[in-house]
């Protein structure tokens, strides 16, 4: 029998809040924003986030919000699986765990046992740590890997916090990656050179079938266009490129749509890469989503991570790269 979604509670019907952050200013704002949600006090976010026998798949249909205090691991070294775009001192932060979207290929379903969203409200402590690290060196910092910070901007307002830091600290270059169409939430701020807005774009067929809850390609591009017009530094990410039937048709259509709408000269760079994920994460993803078409591909194991066969990887990269070159200077294309 199929799940009747009308019988489910709406997202964030319940907000679980650590007692230690009940009086934090962000907590108060979030409670005000969700004034109809039920509030449940908790001792530690892991009491709810790390329980056994949670169904990631079902929780995705009625996500709850958990507000907590980050006590350690404020900043991580950049992952080998992510492009550093030639930057030294590559770091990332994780002040929100999990995402409001439900992409079938997302590694988060392999990383976390819960689909609920944890917001560590004490972002000021992460920013302080970043300030310490960047005191004597330039750093490249990705702030939206384990979530989509812009999609949650109306709730947490972390983009604004990081922007304020970027304005005052020229030793950091921030990348915010998003699939959202929520540029309007930051449209009133003046762009700075050391803050890159990076949009992940997928063909409409993929968005519709494999990226649950995400805005359409057109809506994402509307946001990109507005950001370009405002003068933001823009990165486009066609990553992960997925090996699906007729991929040439879908990616060709998408690339043409992008550059019909956006002036390629106004794009800082484009990152492309095929689907890849750590072996252990893949195992968890597969366990939670056995019927996934994308995850049923006969992947190969390459030095601890799972990826397409070399033949298919090359096919995908070459096709997308060649198509992009028709529109944009090849020096601007970064291939992972």
């Amino acid at each position, binding site marked *: *029998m*199929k*799940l*009747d979604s009308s*019988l*489910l*509670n709406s997202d964030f*019907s*319940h907000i*679980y809040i650590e007692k230690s952050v009940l009086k934090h200013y962000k907590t108060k704002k979030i409670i005000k924003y969700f004034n109809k949600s*039920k509030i*449940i006090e*908790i*001792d530690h976010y892991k*009491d*709810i986030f790390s*329980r*056994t*026998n*949670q*169904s990631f798949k*079902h*929780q995705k*249909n*009625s996500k*709850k919000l958990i507000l907590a205090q980050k006590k350690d691991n404020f900043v991580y070294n950049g992952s080998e699986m992510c492009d550093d775009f030639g930057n030294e001192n590559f770091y990332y932060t994780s002040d929100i765990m999990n995402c409001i979207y439900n992409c079938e290929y997302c590694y988060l379903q392999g990383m976390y046992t819960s689909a609920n969203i944890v917001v560590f409200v004490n972002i000021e402590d992460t920013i302080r740590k970043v300030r310490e690290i960047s005191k004597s060196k330039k750093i490249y910092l990705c702030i939206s890997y384990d979530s989509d910070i812009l999609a949650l901007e109306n709730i947490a307002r972390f983009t604004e916090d990081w922007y304020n830091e970027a304005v005052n600290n020229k030793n950091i270059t921030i990348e915010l990656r998003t699939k959202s169409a929520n540029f309007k939430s930051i449209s009133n701020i003046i762009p700075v050179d050391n803050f890159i807005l990076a949009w992940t774009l997928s063909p409409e067929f993929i968005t519709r079938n494999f990226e649950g809850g995400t805005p359409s390609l057109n809506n994402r591009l509307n946001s990109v266009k507005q950001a370009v017009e405002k003068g933001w530094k823009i990165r486009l990410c066609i990553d992960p490129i997925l*090996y699906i039937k007729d991929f040439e048709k879908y990616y060709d259509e998408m690339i043409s749509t992008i550059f019909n709408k956006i002036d390629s000269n106004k794009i800082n760079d484009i990152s492309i890469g095929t689907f890849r994920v750590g072996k252990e994460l893949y195992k968890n993803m597969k366990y939670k989503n*056995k*019927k*996934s*078409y994308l995850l*049923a*591909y*006969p992947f190969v194991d390459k030095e601890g991570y799972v990826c397409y066969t070399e033949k*298919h990887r090359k096919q995908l990269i070459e096709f997308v790269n060649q198509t992009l070159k028709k529109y944009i200077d090849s020096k601007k294309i970064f291939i992972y």
Partner: protein
Amino acid sequence: MIYITTAMYIEAAPFIKKLGLKKKEGYGKYQVFKNEELILVITGTGIINAAAGISFVFGKELISKNDIIMNIGICGAKKDKFHIGDCIMCSKIIDKCTSKTYYPDILYKHPFKESSILTVYQSIYDEQIDSECVDMESSGFYTAVSAFVYQHNIHIIKIVSDYMNGKIEKDFIKNTIEEKSDIIINWIKERIENVDESIKILNHEEILTIKEISKVLKLTETMRHEFIKLCENYKVRNNDIISILNSYKNVEICTQKREGKRLFNEIRQQLIKF
């Protein structure tokens, strides 16, 4: 399958009657009542009994993570928070003895009020407690069942019977539960309509065929597991697996392991074609 536990018969009676449950033998000291889609067990009062009773029944049944399990019963409540007869879905359980807290997922809409509940080891007659409601089973019930089923399939529904101010008459409990049983039963029926989808990919025939082929090819246990996974992935991609399997169904029994390996490799190549 839906499982319901109550501490006392008096709490179970309206559900047994209205859901047409029949008493079943073979459950030792526990009274168990069943119909085709529902099993009700009376565990006895207290944390240990609540945990032991349902664990005993789980040991006898083929429990699945997708099964739904409910504890229904009476509870005490703070006078300024709830009225006698209020139905409550518990969203937080606090064990008085260990101070541990538990949180069942509340994914489904329901017509009840929500509250935390404090589980105590013996009756208390004092309103000066941290929680809004009090009972004697929830933490034991939750601890036991959360090892077996998904968090969103655990429901603890309580009916307020008193304000922790003295002994309650049996007839009063009976009438209070009787009165509220319809609203609970209606919700149970709604929940039954939304039992989770099966996550099985291969059907019975396909699994049997894989077993037969594995035997004929003399596959090791590891190879057999790989075979199953390859078949599952192939079926997800192509909506069919039996046609490939059938073409190997009648191969002769391999006398040498090498021959089995060669054939398995041949099957593997077909199954990973994309």
